[in-house]
């Protein structure tokens, strides 16, 4: 015990080339198509909100780590990802100071009060968004059309008769900056899957559950898949590594549970959209899912009758 170099850590001893830095910058690249689509659709507002949110998130992260006497790890990119995500999750007309506030809340209340990256039970960007929605309901639900910025309602509020599928697919509809263009989200999602950052189980479980449930309930499943922020959240938020289960079975359970909650909120709830709360609620259930789906330890507990 005297020589600290002889201490062997518990298994597994498998090494991996992945670092937080690599994963987070893969996510940033995966977000690029969405950023481009948002800028094309909503113009300067998209750049303004995303840049403000990112700067606020990174500065807050540095301040929190300084206050907590921790090494400052801005280069891992996790704060930047949170900032970009929350920036893409707000309506295009949101005032700048609200955007900054949401970003600060996401990093402090969503992440650092729990101990920083890896310890946060809830997705920080969604915590920030939930804070904004509760605090500033009107500005956070003030939707405008792309290009000409005319006040309108989101497709989820209008209903499936009012919008065409191509509009839903390419994103020429009202909504949060990043959520409208399914096309851009799919490109980003495929890239993330190809890089091995995105586990297919949660998005497929999430989207599949929504498809099946809306079909059973006699609604338009394709509409419910494309409208609102479901796709965006399934690819970029529900797949967050920190706040989701670690086991394969647990990830299916997470996706399916989030899908059920989403459909319940959308159809019977008083809110038009329930993506934020569906993922936050399943985040809360994640430790429990991890415990229930813990794999059997090799050589233990096979059968009591054996």
């Amino acid at each position, binding site marked *: 015990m005297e020589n600290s170099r002889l*201490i062997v850590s518990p298994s597994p001893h498998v090494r991996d080339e992945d670092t937080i830095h690599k994963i987070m910058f893969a996510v940033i690249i995966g977000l690029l198509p969405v950023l481009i689509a948002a800028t094309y659709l909503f113009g300067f507002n998209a750049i303004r909100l995303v840049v403000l949110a990112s700067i606020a998130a990174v500065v807050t992260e540095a301040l929190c780590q300084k206050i907590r006497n921790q090494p400052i790890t801005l280069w891992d990119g996790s704060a930047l990802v949170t900032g970009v995500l929350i920036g893409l999750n707000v309506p295009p007309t949101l*005032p700048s100071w609200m955007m900054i506030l949401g970003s600060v809340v996401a990093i402090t209340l969503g992440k650092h009060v729990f101990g920083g990256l890896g310890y946060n039970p809830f997705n920080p960007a969604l915590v920030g968004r939930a804070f904004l929605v509760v605090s500033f309901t009107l500005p956070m639900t003030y939707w405008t059309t792309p290009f000409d910025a005319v006040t309108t309602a989101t497709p989820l509020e209008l209903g499936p008769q009012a919008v065409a599928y191509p509009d839903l697919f390419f994103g020429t509809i009202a909504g949060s900056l990043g959520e409208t263009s399914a096309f851009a989200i799919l490109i980003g999602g495929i890239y993330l899957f190809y890089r091995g950052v995105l586990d297919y189980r949660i998005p497929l479980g999430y989207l599949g559950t929504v498809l099946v449930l809306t079909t059973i309930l006699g609604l338009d499943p394709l509409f419910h898949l494309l409208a609102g922020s479901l796709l965006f959240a399934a690819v970029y938020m529900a797949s967050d590594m920190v706040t989701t289960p670690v086991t394969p079975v647990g990830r299916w359970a997470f996706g399916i549970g989030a899908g059920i909650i989403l459909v319940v909120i959308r159809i019977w709830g008083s809110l038009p959209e329930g993506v934020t709360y569906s993922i936050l609620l399943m985040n809360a259930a994640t430790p429990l899912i991890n415990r229930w789906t813990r794999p059997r330890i090799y050589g233990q507990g096979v059968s009591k009758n054996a």
Partner: protein
Amino acid sequence: MINNIREAFFRNLWTENQVVRQILGICSILAVTNLMVNTLVMGLGLMFVISLSSLTISALRNYIPHRVRMIVQTFIIASYVILVDIFLKANYPELSRALGPYIGLIITNCIIMGRAEAFAQKNTPFISMLDGLFAGLGYTIVLMMISFVRELLGFGSIFGVNVNFLQLDTWTIMVMPPAAFFIIGVMIWVATALSTPKQTSQPAVQALSRGQQALANQQVKAGN
């Protein structure tokens, strides 16, 4: 005597502050801190009840049978709470309505019973009364700080006077009880950070001890 008073003052206001140290009386904080006026009335009511009940309990401490002391304490506290309630209803009916059941619920505030059990039982009446007063003062100061933030951001006003000159949107979440949770959490964090001596970080030593810990755990599991 002076030393005792000074000790009781600093103990109740800082080192053992009922709210940020002992985490007592949290339910009333969530309920009443959305407006500063309500909070001040609540704090004054609590200071009145806690100092007089501590005084009474301390004065009677040698006459109350030990076995039934808690029910007697509850009676004494309830009498003073009813006094406050009636006083408010008679003189400030609007405030009484705004605070609703929370004045009556002062009786359930753990701080009062805590002071009675932990201090008034064993000390002379005068210092017990001061101890109760300071405990209530510590509670009131923390509550006023919380309600200052909540009213300023939630309504854009201070003591009901509008200070929102820029016409900014107010934060609806600050009007709701969860906001008190966030603020009290941050205050506890700051208070703990201020009073904890700064640790010299020695990563190597920590890693070593963590390795030993893991090893010890494995040995325990293997032994089982």
